């Protein structure tokens, strides 16, 4: 950046002018920062924006806007490529604190100081765009999900490499009988139309198919993945969609349900193949079965087998029952269930099966004899009932995600990624946890499917795609479903969660959109979710690096590898810009062009800390800008009020908070520090997966340090915030202020 020319603009609209003395704010800029501020009564109006634009024309190359929250009016105050720093005078000042009060005035002045300090410590980021970037999207797995993904990606203009381990495409759908209903009125099995997908893929010139393909190694980063195959060929791809689907649960483990006792106890996948071939016959004597019992939840929702519900087995049994009844309307069909789960329109299929005479028996199967007598603890007639005279028993087994490759041997290295290094149920140790601390759980044993890594990632954190619950790929089911913890690699279909054909096709479309965004953003040097478009990336000053490896270990996305000399090596397009590495680094060698430990500390120190004789404490809140800051904004919009002795510094993620920021705050005389961010651990809500967990981990070690400084550990806490906490957070803050007042003033104040 050439010489810094900062324009400072104050808004007195929306009641700001009536609640605080804007003239005094101008004075802060002038006397403390030697900057002339311009005030406008409606800065976001055409006139106000015009004023800023005119200054930019005249050479202003950085803009500080002190008006509303940085989350609103982003279009009005966006002056690309000029950097804009926002100071919030509205939501977090005048809307949440009393007008005309000296403490509110002090708060507003500190907001201006923090913004001006921030502006002086940052520069416009220069994106990393070195070398060639591939726009090809690789799809791993040629089943319904993979085929749909390939077509979607090709339809968006990208070359597609479709990789399948078998000798033909189609996956399970190829050997399946009819489909679950997916068109109105959703009440009967529909034709298997996998052929339509196969033909469309074959006819698409943008899709290259590799059959019998085994990925042996995947190196690189989004835009620059180099995928090596077993035959030695290497393909360059920009993003990867993992659509490896599922495998049926191993029925040989279901001896208690009679599997193996008689050849006529079969699984639902066997049944599917028999129906597809049009030859429904007993394996024992080749006769067509007249009486069939379906046993639902065979090895599902069972702590000894699959603990989860595969969501489609109920519908599949209904479909198979209806297929049997289509050929033989007099067949006796029993479905033994614990709960029939027919989400959404699948209820129509259930109704149809009932009207065709399928008998549903609620209860657990107690025994299956070799003569196929199924004894059910029948809950509906409240007695144990023997079902005799059956010709066939179908076990409705669940789906196991192909998050590993069953053809490959398990590797030891990086296995913790499969066993969940973010343990969903591990207790989070936090010094002085604010509010109720989460209860301690025993670490759950993860049921990771057997097999080797799918992609054999050449990442420092291991070759696997990390999993979370029950062996499914780690992603946030609701907020960011396709994301994995490996940027540019997305999961779709049953490898992510159990789903049926129609859902998988839809899922593929979602993952393709993420992959397209990944390849295009990588080429532009821009970040992906959730800091979409951020051009900064972590820069490491290797001269000061002590090779402690904390950054390479703690990065939630495995973005940092180690080079041959064990120095950290950032793969910029893998990075999501959370700053967890920056918060981890004990010697602050990691920083972004527009975000650094020094920037945060300077902002903290820019605040005027009143002396203890004023009777006013000063408390720092480092708040996550994904959820905590918007929740505080919302609190302001609702005119919820909290202590005006608090100063909020927004951070990218709690993971980016260095302990040095906290010690700087305490040495600067702050009486307390609160880290406010997303829920860590069990069902995390952290947008960067484990940033808040890392913050908690670091904070758990701060108590001893505080004691050695003769400071009370209560002064530093972490608080959980979710986006919906606008009513709760003001109370949390005020409670913390009260605690600090009881503990007393920071003895370092004034030194």
């Amino acid at each position: 950046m050439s010489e810094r020319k900062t324009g400072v603009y104050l808004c007195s609209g929306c009641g700001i002018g009536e609640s605080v003395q804007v003239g005094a704010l101008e004075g802060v800029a002038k006397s403390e920062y030697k900057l002339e501020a311009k005030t406008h009564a409606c800065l976001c109006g055409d006139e106000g924006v015009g004023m800023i634009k005119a200054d930019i024309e005249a050479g202003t190359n950085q803009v500080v806007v002190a008006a509303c929250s940085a989350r609103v009016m982003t279009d009005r105050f966006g002056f690309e490529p000029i950097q804009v720093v926002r100071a919030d005078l509205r939501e977090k000042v005048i809307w949440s604190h009393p007008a005309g009060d000296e403490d509110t005035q002090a708060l507003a002045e500190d907001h201006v100081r923090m913004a001006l300090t921030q502006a002086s410590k940052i520069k416009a980021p220069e994106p990393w765009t070195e070398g060639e970037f591939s726009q090809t999207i690789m799809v791993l797995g040629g089943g319904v999900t993979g085929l749909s993904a390939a077509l979607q990606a090709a339809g968006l203009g990208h070359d597609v490499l479709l990789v399948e381990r078998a000798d033909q495409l189609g996956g399970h759908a190829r050997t399946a009988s009819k489909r679950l209903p997916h068109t109105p009125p959703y009440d009967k099995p529909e034709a298997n139309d996998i052929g339509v997908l196969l033909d469309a893929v074959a006819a698409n010139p943008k899709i290259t198919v590799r059959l019998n393909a085994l990925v042996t190694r995947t190196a690189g980063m989004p835009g620059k993945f180099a995928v090596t195959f077993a035959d030695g060929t290497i393909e360059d791809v920009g993003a990867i969609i993992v659509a490896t689907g599922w495998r049926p649960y191993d029925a040989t483990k279901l001896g208690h349900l009679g599997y193996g006792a008689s050849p006529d106890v079969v699984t639902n996948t066997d049944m599917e193949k028999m129906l597809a071939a049009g030859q429904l016959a007993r394996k024992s004597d080749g006769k067509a079965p007249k009486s069939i019992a379906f046993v639902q939840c065979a090895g599902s929702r069972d702590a000894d087998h699959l603990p989860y519900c595969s969501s489609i087995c109920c519908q599949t049994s209904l479909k198979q029952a209806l297929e049997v009844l289509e050929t033989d309307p007099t067949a006796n069909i029993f479905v033994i269930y614990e709960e029939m789960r027919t989400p959404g329109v699948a209820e129509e299929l259930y109704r149809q099966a009932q009207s065709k005479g399928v008998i549903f028996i609620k209860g657990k199967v107690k025994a299956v004899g070799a003569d196929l007598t199924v004894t059910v603890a029948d809950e509906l007639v409240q007695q144990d009932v023997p079902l005799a005279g059956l010709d066939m028993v179908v076990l409705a087994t669940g789906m196991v995600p192909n998050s590993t490759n069953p053809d490959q041997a398990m590797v030891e290295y990086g296995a913790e990624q499969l066993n969940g290094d973010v343990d969903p149920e591990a207790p989070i140790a936090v010094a002085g946890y604010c509010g109720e601390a989460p209860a301690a759980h025993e670490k759950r044993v993860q049921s990771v499917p057997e097999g080797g890594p799918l992609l054999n990632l050449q990442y420092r954190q291991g070759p696997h795609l990390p999993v979370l619950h029950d062996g499914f790929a780690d992603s946030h089911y609701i907020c960011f479903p396709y994301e994995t913890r490996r940027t540019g690699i997305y999961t779709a279909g049953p490898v992510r969660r159990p789903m049926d054909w129609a859902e998988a096709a839809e899922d593929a479309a979602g993952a393709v959109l993420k992959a397209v965004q990944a390849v295009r953003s990588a080429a532009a040097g821009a970040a992906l979710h959730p800091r979409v478009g951020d051009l900064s990336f972590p820069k490491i000053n290797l001269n000061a690096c002590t090779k402690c490896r904390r950054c390479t270990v703690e990065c939630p996305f495995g973005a940092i590898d180690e080079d041959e000399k064990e120095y950290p090596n950032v793969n910029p397009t893998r990075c999501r810009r959370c700053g967890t590495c920056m918060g981890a680094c004990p010697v602050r060698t990691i920083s972004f062009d527009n975000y650094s430990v020094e920037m945060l500390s300077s902002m903290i120190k820019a605040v005027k800390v009143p002396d203890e004789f004023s009777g006013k404490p000063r408390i720092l809140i480092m708040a996550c800008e994904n959820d905590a800051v918007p929740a505080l904004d919302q609190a302001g919009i609702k005119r919820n009020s909290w202590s005006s002795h608090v100063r909020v510094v927004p951070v990218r993620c709690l993971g980016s908070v260095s302990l040095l920021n906290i010690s700087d705050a305490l040495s600067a005389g702050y009486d307390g520090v609160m880290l406010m961010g997303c829920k860590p651990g069990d069902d995390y809500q952290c947008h960067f997966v484990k940033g808040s967990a890392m913050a908690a981990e670091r904070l758990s070690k701060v108590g001893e340090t505080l004691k050695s400084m003769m400071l009370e550990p209560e002064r530093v806490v972490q608080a959980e915030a979710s986006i919906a906490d606008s009513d709760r957070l003001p109370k949390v803050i005020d409670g913390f202020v009260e605690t600090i007042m009881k503990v007393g003033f920071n003895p370092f104040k004034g030194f």
Partner: protein
Amino acid sequence: MNAMSPTPSKAYDLNFARWVYENVDGGDRMALCMQCGTCSGSCPIGTQMDHGPRKLFMMIRAGMKDAVLSSNTLWNCVSCYNCVVRCPRQVPVTYILHDLAHVAVREGYAQAKESDNARFAKAFWWSAAKYGRTDERLVTAKYYFSFGVGEGIKRGMANQKIAMGMVKTKRMHLGMPHKVKNTGELHAILAKAAEMEAKKHGAK
């Protein structure tokens, strides 16, 4: 329709259930019963039944024919129609129970002969069919004496006070029973209906 329902040979032998689906009034809808229990939960006299309607329907599927047809559920239903109104699958529970009661009578189940409600229902129908009206005094007497002469007198004496009160307030009259104007026509209608019913049951 077969005059007699088939007897299941084992648990969940579906021959009886299918017979009910086809032959009992409203039975076709019973196939759609999803065992939610709204009927039993809505029943004002559920506590007075051996089995609620929900369980009774499942017992039909389970082939528990004897238990179903000797259940007092069929006789204790008061026809309030709460269950019919509330059933999410539009199963006409009340019709089914009443028709099953007919089946129980036809097939000679003891409950259908001996239970209080069965006796009372018969007395009620006797009066309605004979006079076209129900005469409290005669229905009550018929019901009481169905237990035998001694028991009939005993019950009548026990309720004498109530009867006198009703007479005084003109809720019950002495003298000839009320009847419709032309009982002959009524009897002809009922005879025709009985003939049609017999034909229906005798067929096949």
